[in-house]
């Protein structure tokens, strides 16, 4: 049963499969669960791709971007999600630099600021585990959107957009430091927060929290990532 649930299913009628965040087994996420809820298996997915019309100003922006990308638009923009009033574009990594260039330079898009890179690790989504999220801010048009690039653990390379957005320099270093995503073309991809000789990438889900058990009088409570807790 465990083998079945870790493979993302192909969606019916050819739509994009959903990002599988997590498969939760059991209620408390720790061994020794005798509550009877230990057989529970829950698949949690992100909100799926949205169909047109997206609403608000989102249609206009996606139209302009598709026009600028021309015949590469199909491969570049994997799918579009509109959720909670925010626009997310899933971009294929080969086209990321071009998309970033258009977003910054076109006068109707004019997203001058890239607010950094946020890495997210979805170990359950085999083949697309590491996501890099780039929030883009337009001061001229006063709006914000998000680019998301997904790569696999086996090949964690994403082209660096520092040539278009120099402000991303340290943010990409931080994402490399914490997730192991290698940004090709970055001027100096080195560790920034962890000591230079640190082994491992701490914010990945397979990296332990690293805490020590807390000693009380007559008891010992394990560290937060290993003890029983609601999920």
């Amino acid at each position: 049963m465990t083998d079945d649930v870790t493979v993302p299913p192909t969606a019916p009628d050819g739509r994009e499969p959903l990002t599988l965040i997590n498969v939760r087994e059991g209620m408390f996420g720790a061994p020794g669960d005798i509550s009877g809820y230990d057989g529970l298996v829950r698949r949690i997915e992100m909100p799926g791709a949205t169909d047109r019309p997206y609403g608000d100003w989102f249609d206009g922006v996606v139209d302009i971007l598709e026009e600028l990308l021309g015949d590469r638009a199909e491969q570049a923009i994997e799918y579009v999600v509109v959720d909670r009033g925010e626009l997310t574009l899933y971009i294929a990594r080969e086209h990321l630099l071009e998309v970033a260039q258009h977003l910054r330079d076109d006068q109707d898009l004019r997203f001058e600021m890239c607010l950094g890179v946020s890495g997210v690790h979805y170990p359950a989504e085999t083949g697309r585990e590491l996501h890099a999220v780039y929030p883009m801010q337009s001061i001229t048009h006063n709006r914000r959107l998000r680019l998301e690039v997904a790569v696999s653990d086996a090949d964690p390379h994403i082209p660096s957009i520092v040539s278009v957005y120099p402000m991303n320099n340290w943010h990409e270093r931080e994402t490399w430091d914490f997730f192991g995503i290698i940004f090709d073309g970055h001027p100096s991809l080195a560790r920034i927060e962890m000591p230079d000789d640190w082994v491992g990438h701490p914010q990945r889900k397979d990296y332990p929290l690293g805490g020590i058990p807390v000693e009380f009088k007559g008891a010992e409570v394990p560290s937060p990532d290993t003890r029983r807790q609601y999920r």
Partner: protein
Amino acid sequence: MGIEESAPPFLLGTVEGLLGWARSGSLWPATFGLACCAIEMMATGTPRFDIARIGQEVFRGSPRQADLMIVAGRVSNKMAPIVRQVYDQMPEPKWVLAMGVCASSGGMFNNYAIVPGVDHIVPVDIYLPGCPPRPEMLINALLELHTQIQNTPLGANRREIAAAAEAAALKATPTSDMMGLLR
């Protein structure tokens, strides 16, 4: 070494008192503010709380001129060697005050990045809990440290007391074996 090593017991009491008074009268802290506790430590130096009244407003930038290292804030693994280096650069006699729960025990951050208590790196004389401790609490800890320094034994007395303390610590029950006590 000095008079404190070779003095006969009846004289030692007076020397201890005099030396303790001199040492505790004007402790100079080294600037070792790391995080939130550093802001409260700076606030302690400002007029509302004013540690100048106990002689300690001169935070020395150079550890070579300092007596007291107030480790104020969380010590990350990257910062740990520097804490030790600064401590080593201070001349004797020196004291360490672990300010805040992060310096005392790692605080709320039980993870890969924080050293769980600066006493893993340097010997600590006073632990001050709080997140962050109010400036009044810091002044209380400093006055407590003054009392401790005032009553520091010297010479033969010191060796006796140190041996007794070590023997007691070796015989003591570890915390997790203390059953049946909530406090």
